[in-house]
């Protein structure tokens, strides 16, 4: 098993922490391997933020994500910039209030969640990244829920722990409900929800 992921959005959405949680879950709590890289060039300034992960059950040799299996896009710019590199038939997870899709997503399995709205309901917009991590966990099933919960617990300061765990649960549940609605028929294949379909 080797999966390449990219998580991208704008500065302040916590995309690096989201990637960090997933990498930590994979390599520490799930007993596998994960390599996280970030873009540091001038293109990484001016509000855009992105991190890539290679997750595997074997040591990761090639460090970069070349054609991601999964793209998590939290902003329109992130979507536009990275949707083209996603593997044919790959997965696209989007913040559906912020990312209007176009025909470039047609060959992908698309899943949307209003992560920012859910985070606002929890009282802190800043936890939208962890809502997204919960959603990612439920939809992709790359990692076990226990491993990701443990990584969230490690990765956030104690006074925000409960808030972040709630954020994870809300995102996870949203994903579970979405899959239930989507009537899964084949393994690893899920119907695309109407509201974010192109």
């Amino acid at each position, binding site marked *: 098993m080797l999966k390449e992921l990219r998580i991208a959005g704008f500065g302040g959405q916590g995309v690096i922490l989201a990637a960090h949680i997933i990498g930590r879950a994979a390599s520490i709590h799930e007993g596998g391997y994960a390599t*996280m*890289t970030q873009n540091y060039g001038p293109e990484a300034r001016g509000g855009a933020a992105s991190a890539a992960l290679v997750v595997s059950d074997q040591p990761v040799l*090639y460090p970069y994500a070349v054609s991601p299996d999964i793209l998590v896009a939290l902003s329109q710019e992130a979507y536009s910039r990275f949707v083209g590199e996603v593997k044919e038939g790959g997965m696209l997870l989007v913040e559906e209030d912020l990312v209007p899709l176009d025909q470039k997503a047609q060959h992908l399995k698309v899943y949307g969640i209003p992560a920012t709205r859910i985070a606002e309901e929890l009282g802190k917009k800043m936890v939208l990244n962890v809502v997204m991590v919960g959603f990612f966990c439920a939809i992709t099933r790359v990692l076990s829920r226990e491993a990701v919960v443990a990584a969230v617990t490690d990765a956030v300061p104690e006074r925000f722990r409960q808030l972040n765990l709630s954020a994870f649960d809300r995102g996870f549940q949203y994903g579970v409900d979405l899959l239930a609605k989507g009537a899964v028929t084949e393994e690893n294949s899920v119907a695309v929800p109407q509201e974010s379909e192109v």
Partner: protein
Amino acid sequence: MHADQRCVLTGTHFINGDAACCEGALAAGARFAAGYPITPSTEIVERFAARAPKVGGLFIQMEDELASSIAIQGMVWAGQKSFTVTSGPGYSLMMEHIGLAAISETPCVFVDVQRGGPSTGLPTLPAQGDMMQARFGSHGDYVTIALCPNSPQECFDLAVKSFNLAEQYRVPVMFMMDECVGHMTEKVVIPKADDIALFPRRHASKPPGEFTLFEPGPDLVPEMAHAGEGYKVYVTGLTHDKRGYPVLNADAQRELITRLFEKIRRASDELTMVEAEGLEDADVVVVSYGITSRVAQRAIQMARDKGLKVGKLRLICVWPFPEKLIRELASKVKALVMPELNMGQVVLELERCAGGQCQVISVPHPGGTVHKPAEILEAIERGAR
């Protein structure tokens, strides 16, 4: 001697190579760093500046790299383990004082997180273009030790090793990271302090009146005394005698410089630090170091899937170069393949040691990213024909 528990972040972490390097330096006992922050090495000193004061250490942001590379040497002679951290243009500026550390036998560590060059080049992207500079960058004749990590875990482990080797042989050690390992985040396991062995400062075993500052020991390495302890501590960049006093003639030069080379030559077996696999029946061996070794490993797997007999030799210590090992290997194989993120530097040494016994294939790359495994595979296939 073991690491000080207060400074060791024992546990399992998900951190980048720069952070791991900083933790390695702290675990190794470094209590002083001076630097002029530069991408992609900045995170090392940023973290050190935050961590060191809590364990009685200090970071000074100096006016430039010349000042940084001399400040650390002052602190070593005052009794502390010290290091500096830089990249590309900053490394060039440090060359003068790397020579001073070599001639004054000042144990210290220079971390170079290599980025694309020459000049300001590619600040945020990887290269391995400073490998010859690590060996020959300062003027005059000297030797250093250079280690190349290929993961954040090794940024920790080999940072500790770098400080240990610096103390053991009293040389400046070049810790040759690159942007890719520096900025990549992976699992890093930091052991318990009791499980981290440290090489202690070779402090004067005689009292001040009987001690000669540069009197070589049985392994040609002198003991050290610090300023302020009552010893005569005369340290100079000039050619000097055993007392450390300048003696400007050919005899003194011969005695000093020969010893500086000989102390490392005698340790060449111990400094042959490699990771080898499948060398016994290999037709082709891929010789690599640093981040490139991971991409090479992928290419080796691809070649083996095609039925080729390919071995792996990863150089953990690039300088001194493992001459004996390469000579023996070259007599048994069809080809040695060396991918590196430069236009062909360490491959020159590989060719020299192979001495025409087998084909040597360079897989150069100007940097900015890592090789594609297919580029290395193509060279392996060429060598196997």
